[in-house]
């Protein structure tokens, strides 16, 4: 397939393809980060993760229509307000869910799976009743659309770069919170030994609630960012959930670094294969590879060594 093209053409495609892989990488990290925190730190399998993302997307849509209507001058920058609101909305809903449902199920991981799956169905139907069954179109300010012309033949999508920047920012923020703040130390203490952490005076219930809230809040931000590249509808969350779990499980459940490494390898494999074969085949081969690796390394790429 390369016979007829000049070297310049190929170089440009290679560069753009590299960026396509990086963009997919950031999308995966952003999707998986919230889930990795909840799954890794609390052992809760949150099947409603996609619906928390879509809540963020709907918040973005509402912000965009409100701003357009009442404060058009704010429109170019509304996205930042929307992301903040999305974080707050999804985070609060997450804490509410933790309080009402999850905390009663902590010792039963399979039950949380069922319960959160039920929750995802409830949320989907709620979105459908409130916002209608049809997808909504989120309008973006002009500067976020289109592409950046790096050279004559290399064009990089601006929204892709935006997602990349956002992912880097959030990853740094999350690792700071988890590894350097005192609250992060409490979270890690609870993960390592819940009883002991309680004994030294850590309010484990409160830590759980905020951890769950943080995970859901990040999902909200991800959902908000994905209005740039994907659809916003009641069931759109389902589009992300499989990939998200794949990234988290492949990376090793309790490891943030693992999540990032797994997102990187999956996205690069996927986007490279997609270039040489059809999208469906690329997906099949990616999944087969992951299954093969997981058979040899069931704990995932990076597993936190915890004494049980």
């Amino acid at each position, binding site marked *: 397939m390369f016979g007829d*093209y000049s070297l310049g*053409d190929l170089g440009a*495609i290679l560069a*753009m*393809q590299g*960026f*396509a892989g990086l*963009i*997919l990488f950031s*999308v995966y990290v952003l999707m998986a980060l919230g889930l990795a925190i909840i799954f890794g730190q609390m052992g809760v399998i949150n099947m409603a993760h996609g619906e928390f993302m879509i809540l963020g997307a709907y918040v973005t849509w509402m912000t965009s229509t409100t701003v357009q209507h009442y404060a058009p001058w704010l429109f170019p920058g509304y996205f930042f307000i929307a992301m903040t609101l999305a974080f707050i909305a999804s985070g609060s809903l997450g804490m509410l869910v933790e309080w009402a449902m999850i905390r009663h199920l902590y010792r039963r991981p399979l039950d949380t799976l069922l319960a959160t799956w039920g929750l995802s169905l409830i949320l989907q*139907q709620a979105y*459908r009743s409130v916002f*209608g*069954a*049809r*997808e*909504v*179109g*989120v*309008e973006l300010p002009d500067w976020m*659309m*289109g*592409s950046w*012309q790096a050279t004559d033949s290399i*064009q990089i*999508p*601006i*929204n*892709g770069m935006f997602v990349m920047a956002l992912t880097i920012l959030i990853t740094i923020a999350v690792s700071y919170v988890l590894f350097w703040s005192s609250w992060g130390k409490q979270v890690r203490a609870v993960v390592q030994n819940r009883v002991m952490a309680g004994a030294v005076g850590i309010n484990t219930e409160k830590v759980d609630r905020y951890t769950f809230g943080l995970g859901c809040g990040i999902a909200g931000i991800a959902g908000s960012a*994905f209005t*740039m*590249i*994907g*659809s*916003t*509808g*009641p*069931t*759109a969350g*389902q*589009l*992300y959930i499989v990939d998200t779990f794949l990234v988290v499980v492949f990376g090793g459940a309790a490891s943030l670094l693992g999540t990032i490494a797994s997102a990187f390898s999956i996205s690069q494999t*996927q*986007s490279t294969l*997609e*270039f040489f074969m*059809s*999208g*469906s085949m*690329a*997906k099949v081969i990616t999944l087969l590879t992951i299954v093969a690796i997981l058979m040899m390394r069931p704990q995932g790429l990076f597993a936190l060594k915890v004494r049980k």
Partner: protein
Amino acid sequence: MSSNKSGVLMSDETNKGLNSPFRRKLLMGMAALPAMTMLPKASFAQAPATSAVNTTGLAVTDTEVTVGILHSVTGTMAISETGSVQAEKLAIEQINASGGVLGRKIKFIQEDGASDWPTFAEKAKKLLVNDKCAAVMGCWTSASRKAVLPVFEQYNGMLYYPTFYEGLEQSKNVIYTGQEATQQIIAGLDWVQKTKGAKTFYLLGSDYIWPRTSNKIARKHIEGHLKDSKVVGEEYFPLGSTQFNSVINKIKLTKPDVIYAIIVGGSNVAFYKQLKAAGIDLSKQTLLTISVTEDEIDGIGGENIAGAFACMKYFQSLDNPNNKAFVSAFKKMWGEKTVIGDVTQAAYLGPWLWKLTVEKAGSFDIDKVAAASPGVEFKGAPEGYVRIHENHHLWSKTRVGKAKADGQYELIYETADLVEPDPFPKGYQ
């Protein structure tokens, strides 16, 4: 009406001996009689006896006839099927307002297929066996239609199916009011080759039966019937796929004259947003789709797809009196902001075609309705005149529209004649 005709005939015979001027006057008086039956009250009073029009135990009384509406109003397909439900309810309301069917008002029972194919089959059985529906308007995806087809054939029901689909099917118990694949594909490809001088085509689709069958027909047509044209790429993506950057790069590399896209559902939104973000300008790059109606543009955003061409049989913007009345009635019933896509219009045809067929057959019996269907014409269709073919699909025109930033299509081209439906196209399989 039939009773009046025989009345005229009788008077004709009994007045044989009268001289001609008097006879003419008498006949003129008689001729005025049919006009009286146009009044709703009169027509209800004169409705033919139930025993005569319903010999198989359907839910038909002296004043009412029951039909079913079977679509997904919950689950992932609700997004598409909502419009069809709205159109069918509007048609039923209008038919009732104009006197009903054979003097009977239509009562509908709505069931939810819940985007789940076994549920569709179960609900179809309920509508036919328990509710004895005289007809069912329903289904959207091919999967749901395939699930209910054995039920309709076993219990002898009548289904009016609204969606454009891949063809390769024909049943006594189904009337297909949407286009089968060749009606949607061939005229569009001919048009794009003629007006854009297209030689190279890149085929894209979601990975299931409709896009695959459609692209197969498209490929056969491009390679076999269009001069000097070839397919430079053909790709499928899993349903719900949201990442298209790699294929967009491939498109940039191969520089096809036409991108032929049959991507559905949420993937659609991702595809057009990413296409725009990657700097592919649809005013310069020709893109022809058969899967994006006004309904989908709502989610994609008009600014992201402006300039693309769609090949359909109906656009909300069609400029004819039927359509203007239809659009304003639809908006009056369902709100100013609703949009009407190709399938929604096809769903609107269902109840009307059924009414016309029942009146032609003079009976609600399924066998008589199925037999009377070929040749039934509906002149009030928003898309213009349509007629049912012997194969239970519709003769209809193929049209090409150009997407505008406001989410509407502008009509660019329409076939001069009605296109014959051909669900089993020779040389295309």
